[in-house]
């Protein structure tokens, strides 16, 4: 348990280290999610267009 506490406290720099890692996670995860959403959207649009095309 104390080992975990030691790890989390980062030798007294917990605030700086963990805030940096948290911000990085938010930004990078944000861009990954944004990109995959765009791809999904483009896919559904392409499928819809294909179906409309066939009906005609």
């Amino acid at each position, binding site marked *: 348990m104390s080992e975990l506490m030691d790890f989390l406290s980062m*030798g007294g720099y917990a605030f700086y280290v963990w805030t*940096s890692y948290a911000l990085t996670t938010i*930004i990078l995860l944000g861009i990954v999610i944004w990109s995959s959403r765009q*791809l999904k959207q483009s896919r559904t649009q392409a499928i819809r267009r*294909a179906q409309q095309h066939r009906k005609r």
Partner: protein
Amino acid sequence: MYRFADRLAPWLAGLCVLCLVAGLYLGLVVAPADYEQGDSYRIIYIHVPAAWMSMFVYVVMATSSAVFLIWRLKIADMVALASAPIGAAFTAVALLTGSFWGKPMWGTWWIWDARLTSELLLLFLYLGYLALRGALETPQSASKAAAILAIVGVVNIPIIHFSVEWWNTLHQPATITKFDKPSMHISMLRPLLLMVLAFQLLYFHNLMVRVRALILQRENRASWVAELAEKNHV
């Protein structure tokens, strides 16, 4: 091309997560504390990869912009457009983590030294590129104008890299200049290289996702796009 990217994607993602987990474990848990900076130096494992990628992505963006201007390859334009937001994200990460490292070690969040200022300029170049693409009405002229901006901005890259050698800065010189004798102990260096690889893979995976989305949007009249979209992912 498109199908190849589709197949490759899960492999890239898997390898990226693997490197990320290994790099973080080795960097945060296994690597020893620094003799001067204690545990605060562990920010390096995201700061340095992000800073490297911010420059690497810009070089990719400028090169593909040049290829687009000269050969008029549509795919090159898409690569440049898809790279810009990813590069901006890496630049923001480098600046923010640098700030959170500078406060405890240097004693300040921000200082207008040559390295920090030129990296901030890089962020504005990315944002300017994206704004230019959004602002101009016709996609054709937006592509061309933005490509010129990207190419001109590439002179900032050597300035960022050499700023710590050319001028007096608060920022320290590069740690890894040559592979034979880096100024970092091997137990600390290994996780750093793993993290660099992880960020590199993250970029390529993300780039391919964005380029595929752009292909589907732009080539909407091509029959193969419709066919593919129907067959693979209903």
